């Protein structure tokens, strides 16, 4: 792999670059060192699976990557920009324009239709009503939910809810999709559907995806697997195309 990097032409800055990131929860004797120095660079168009035992700091790292949380120390560059120097509002704008999130618990707005859930990020982008409807409907179509636009999360299965969440994450055409255990609440058949969806977006639209998973079967869809252990990157391996 190092050899491959050596022969390729000088690379543009990676999409995200973590340098010696640490995160300590609490203080004094109760201090919990969740991340103990993470170095990680991820380029555009990658599909990365993050694996590791429970408590190894995967979610903590994802929150930092997603600009939802700030590291205790270390540098985080997003497209070359130092995220640590951004204030709360600028980080919100970074999320708005560059990031999409998919959570284990779906995190859709209750009692709000699938279409409106998908429209939500577009509203914050100040997009007009008609254009919003069109884009949201297209995103729902892309995840195979045409005809379900007006169902609320309560009227959808877990798999369908997660597909709505994916539609919401990709409707803004983000630079990076962050998914923390997106299949954690789903059965195997539903999980495979979701993984195939993500693979399609990665391959056809060049969407960069970082995904946390516990299941080796799901990690197999990714082209790079990063292993965490005790707040450190334990292994970082690229794997061939799965198809």
């Amino acid at each position: 792999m190092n050899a491959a990097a050596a022969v390729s032409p000088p690379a543009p800055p990676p999409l995200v670059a973590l340098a010696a990131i640490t995160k300590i929860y609490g203080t004094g004797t109760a201090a919990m060192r969740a991340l103990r120095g993470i170095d990680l660079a991820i380029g555009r168009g990658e599909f990365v699976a993050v694996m590791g035992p429970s408590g190894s700091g995967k979610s903590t790292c994802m929150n930092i990557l997603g600009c939802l949380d700030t590291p205790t120390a270390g540098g985080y560059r997003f497209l070359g920009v130092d995220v640590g120097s951004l204030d709360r509002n600028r980080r919100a704008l970074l999320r708005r324009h560059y990031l999409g999130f998919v959570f284990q618990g779906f995190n859709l707005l209750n009692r709000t239709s699938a279409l409106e859930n998908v429209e939500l990020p577009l509203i914050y982008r100040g997009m007009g009503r008609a254009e919003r409807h069109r884009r949201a409907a297209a995103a729902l179509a892309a995840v195979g939910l045409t005809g379900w636009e007006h169902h609320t999360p309560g009227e959808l299965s877990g798999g369908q809810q997660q597909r709505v969440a994916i539609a919401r994450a990709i409707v803004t055409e983000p630079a990076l999709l962050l998914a923390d255990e997106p299949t954690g609440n789903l059965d195997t058949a539903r999980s495979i559907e979701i993984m195939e969806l993500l693979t399609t977006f990665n391959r056809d639209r060049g969407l960069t995806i970082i995904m946390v998973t516990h299941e080796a079967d799901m990690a197999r869809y990714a082209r790079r697997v990063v292993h965490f252990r005790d707040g450190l990157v334990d292994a970082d391996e690229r794997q061939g195309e799965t198809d």
Partner: protein
Amino acid sequence: MLTNTLRLALREIRRNVLRSFLTILGIVIGVAAVIVMVTVGAGATAQVTEQIASLGSNLLMIRTGQRMGPGQTTAAPPFDMDDVEALGRDIPAVAAVAPSASQRLVAVYGNANWATMVTGVDNQFFIVRNWAVASGRRFLETELRAGKAVCVVGATIARELFGPQEPLDQLIRVGTFTCTVIGVLEAKGQSTFGSDQDDLVLVPLRTFQRRVAGNRDIGLIQVSVAEGRSTDKAKSDIEYLLRERRRITGSESDNFQVMDMKEITKMLTGTTRILTTLLGAVAAVSLLVGGIGIMNIMLVSVTERTREIGIRLAIGALEREVLLQFLVEAVVLSSFGGVIGILLALSASLGLSRLLQIPFVFNPGIMAVAFLFSAAVGIVFGFFPARKAARLDPIDALRHE
């Protein structure tokens, strides 16, 4: 963005119709109280003003004592006929002087009886009060001088005692004496809170002094100022004269009061003002309680919707956008309270003015003020919960169950 925020707020309110309604009840009551207060107050004032206009703008009322406040009067020596004559003689601006003395008595005719104000007057009364006799006649000089048992009754008395019967030449008993009805006054046709101008029986002053009061005291002197003469000048002349006659010197304060239109209005609207103040207090308290109610429910709402806020923040909502969302919700809620309060107040004022027989004065200005005020309550009391929502940490909010 704002229309979206507005739509969102409306939907949130529709989701909890009952809760929203209970939340805004305080605002509803507060706004309704303010508007009812102002509307009824304005109606009462309009009526009093109209009554006073019917008295004529050149009327001065002179009474003994100094009014301390509504219903409170300090004791003071009464006036007598010499005072009346002196006023007519020494003050050139005075066109007519009408002495009177009154007492509440029961008037009886057949089976009907009616508690009324019996007032001893002379014919000057009709002049200064600009009041005509509708049927029959005024008093004759001989009747006045001899203190005859005759009376002129107000329209209310004619109606209550005689009904459809002709009152003229009938005998009515007033207190302990019996008098013949010689005239019926023109109806003034208005009433303020508890005081009906047409509810009176006029008898010659001398008759009153002999048969009712048992003394020669005069309680009230009404003066009409001659056309083209200054009322203020007449008023100060009268005050000077009466101070002299009553031997009030230097810094001693008057033991009588000369009231012009302004002061008569103030006297007649005294009860209205008490009512207005009371309702004002109710309104203030209701708005405060209503505001706290809104704050409370918005805080509950922020807690309930913490996860939603987390999702919005994760998606990229700015702090001020979340703040705006909750603030708009609070303002929409309180404005609804304002609108309902206005509607409630309109029907209540209509009913009240009909009940109190005062004109209904529609005042769009106060409606606008009440509406804006209720919206302001939403802003003030919605701000703290909204800021709390906006300042949530995205991860904590997302983790919230």
